[in-house]
């Protein structure tokens, strides 16, 4: 039986292409890549749509938008920048004007010194830049995921602010004080100092860092006395006990405070009130003070922090001084004094010195987690 030939009418319409409208795949664009084959790879309707989107509305995302972030949330369906709509129209008008002006300028500029021309051009560009600058991003523009309205790209510390944090911590010697003064969380201040220390003796990947920072929203350095905070520094963690509902009738006349509320959860081990659980409780104490008093209080706190650090350091040094250090050729041998009694009566105490006897290693066993839990800094 001869093979059955399908009637052309039965073929689905979207698989037939005329050569002129055929989609060409970008990954095999040249015939040199596949000299043996003339056929273009299969391009489905979906792929065509995708490339149409990438050429149309998606084109804006290919390159970063100079001087701004460039997220999906900032564009409408047709790929126009929402906050730049009025601007575009204005710029178009200006461009036409500018064209006429530059035509005239070119005629005059024949024979004029190249440097003066350059100067004029720069001025013109600067003017255009000032007028054509995009308005700052709204919260809507900072959404990288259109469906998720609860997430937005948050600002990172600018290079100047990081430098300022490092300088202040070095000068003032207090992470807490700098954190409160600049509105940056304490962990972040400490991390910036740590990273800056590493940065000092390492080659920098500057082109990468610049390009990435240009794509991100940034918190600039604010030199005012009360700068705009980078983030909220007094975050109260939600206690697990408070996530369920709890009914506790209280008479209306009773003066029911935060401390009382903490007692409701557990009378013997009450929850601490918010002013004790926030990272910067000293700010609550300083709220009613005058400016000079605040400065004094902060100074005292800084001193206290420094003193604590000094004591810690002293303690460590004292502990280390007990150790006997023998200098070798390439390394030191540090002898630490221990006691054999620490193994306990039966010789099996976990606190005892040395590798324990009679305790099997289970690190090769099936089902044991072999990934380290922590890495000591």
């Amino acid at each position: 039986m001869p093979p059955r030939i399908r009637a052309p009418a039965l073929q689905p319409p979207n698989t037939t292409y005329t050569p002129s409208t055929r989609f060409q795949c970008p990954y095999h664009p040249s015939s040199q890549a596949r000299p043996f084959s003339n056929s273009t790879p299969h391009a489905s309707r979906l792929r065509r749509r995708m490339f149409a989107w990438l050429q149309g509305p998606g084109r804006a995302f290919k390159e970063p938008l100079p001087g701004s972030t460039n997220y999906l949330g900032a564009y409408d369906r047709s790929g126009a920048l929402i906050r730049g709509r009025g601007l575009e129209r204005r710029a178009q008008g200006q461009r036409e004007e500018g064209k006429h002006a530059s035509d005239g300028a070119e005629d005059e500029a024949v024979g004029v010194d190249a440097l003066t021309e350059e100067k004029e051009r720069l001025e013109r560009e600067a003017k255009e830049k000032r007028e054509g600058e995009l308005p700052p991003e709204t919260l809507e523009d900072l959404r990288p995921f259109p469906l998720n309205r609860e997430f937005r790209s948050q600002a990172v510390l600018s290079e100047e602010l990081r430098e300022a944090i490092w300088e202040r911590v070095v000068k003032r010697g207090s992470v807490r004080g700098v954190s409160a003064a600049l509105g940056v969380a304490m962990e972040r201040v400490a991390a910036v100092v740590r990273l800056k220390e590493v940065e000092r003796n390492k080659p920098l990947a500057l082109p990468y860092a610049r390009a990435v920072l240009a794509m991100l929203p940034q918190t600039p350095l604010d030199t005012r006395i009360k700068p705009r905070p980078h983030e909220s520094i007094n975050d109260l963690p939600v206690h697990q006990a408070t996530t369920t509902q709890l009914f506790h009738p209280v008479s209306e006349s009773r003066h029911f405070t935060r401390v009382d509320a903490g007692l409701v959860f557990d009378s013997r081990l009450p929850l601490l009130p918010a002013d004790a659980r926030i990272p910067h409780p000293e700010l609550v104490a300083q709220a009613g003070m005058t400016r000079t008093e605040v400065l004094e209080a902060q100074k005292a706190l800084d001193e206290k922090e420094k003193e604590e650090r000094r004591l810690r350091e002293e303690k460590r040094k004292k502990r280390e001084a007990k150790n006997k250090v023998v200098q070798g050729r390439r390394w030191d041998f540090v002898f630490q004094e221990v006691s054999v009694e620490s193994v306990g009566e039966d010789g099996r105490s976990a606190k005892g010195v040395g590798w324990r006897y009679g305790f099997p290693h289970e690190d090769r066993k099936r089902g044991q987690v072999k990934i380290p839990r922590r890495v000591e800094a």
Partner: protein
Amino acid sequence: MRRKVPHGLKRPKVRQTWNKYNLYNISRMQTPTAYDKTFFQQKWKAKALTRAYHGEQIKEKHWERMFRRSIPAVVPMDHEYLAKHDGSELAAGRGSGLDEAEKGRSPAKTPYMQMTFHPTERRLDTAIFRALFASSARQARQFVTHGFVKVNGKKMRYPGYMLNPGDMFQVDPERVMWATGARKDQDKYETSGEYMTTPEENEPVDEVAEEDEDADTAATADAESTPTADATEATERTPEELRKNLTALMEQAKTYLKDPKDLSPKQKIELRSFRTNLKRAISRNKATESEADDYESQLAALTAQVEELTKEQAKLLKEALQRAHENPYDPSKPYLTPWAPRPYMSAFAFIPRYLEVSHNICSAVYLRHPVARPGLAEVPTPFHKETNQLAHAWYLRRR
């Protein structure tokens, strides 16, 4: 790890990558319909979608062990309010109708459900992707297993390492530049025409681009001919000649300051000679033959000679020279040089607040675990809260 279809268009799954397919999928993403599905079906679908994004490299059993029904959250407190009130103001006057007056204002809700996948953000590979050191979570994972990542200064080869608050992780900057930079063979695709669309649509665009490029190359060729011609001249030079030379160099500088991806390979090679030319121009000028070998002081000395050089022009030259110094053309690198970000990177460029990143040294510190706060969830997830809620309900194992 089972190999999965990375970027399907038929049944699209959104992944943790900067791929353009993925961007397209995010842009047309919709919350799945619920009216024609049972609750189980809704949860199943939501689980499938969310798991394709959040740690698709993690085995399902492993993720089930990682899942926590409790979700960390914080409430920002105002210290001035705390100092002013002791908490009794919330209850005061409740019985006499005061609470009725307050009904109008409602504080922003804390999006707990958007935090369903918060344990995955603690993983080392995810954190590397979030810090913009890799272009996908899979690539980040490969960096870890191939030994390019250090945690607290020690090599860490486990992508599933759960970062502790205060851990610093570093990725080899060369790897990061490769992962986030444009492809080396980009120009081959750019100049080959008919890029991503039908030929009819593309032709006029390409013609214009080619014309532009031609003009540019002509400009640079002219510019280059001036200094090379000068090289044959006698060593003594008048300020005018110097100025002429500088103008030519400036032309080159301008081309150089353009986005490096717009340049043709030929231009790039020409631009490599820019630095050499400028250096030669500086060294041939007798007055500036000082010992100072850093280019900035040399340039300052040179610009001081020519009064007509405006500040902007001097700045332009300096900037171009510095850029050439920091971001040189280097064919030995596996990525496009001068370095430029890869396409479609900017749409994905965000850094969550639980990381503090120093891009200069490709290092970051994991500050704390991600938290939810009123109106904001710190876990970056492309899904609607309903989808995440359904996924959360799935893993509560009450089905």
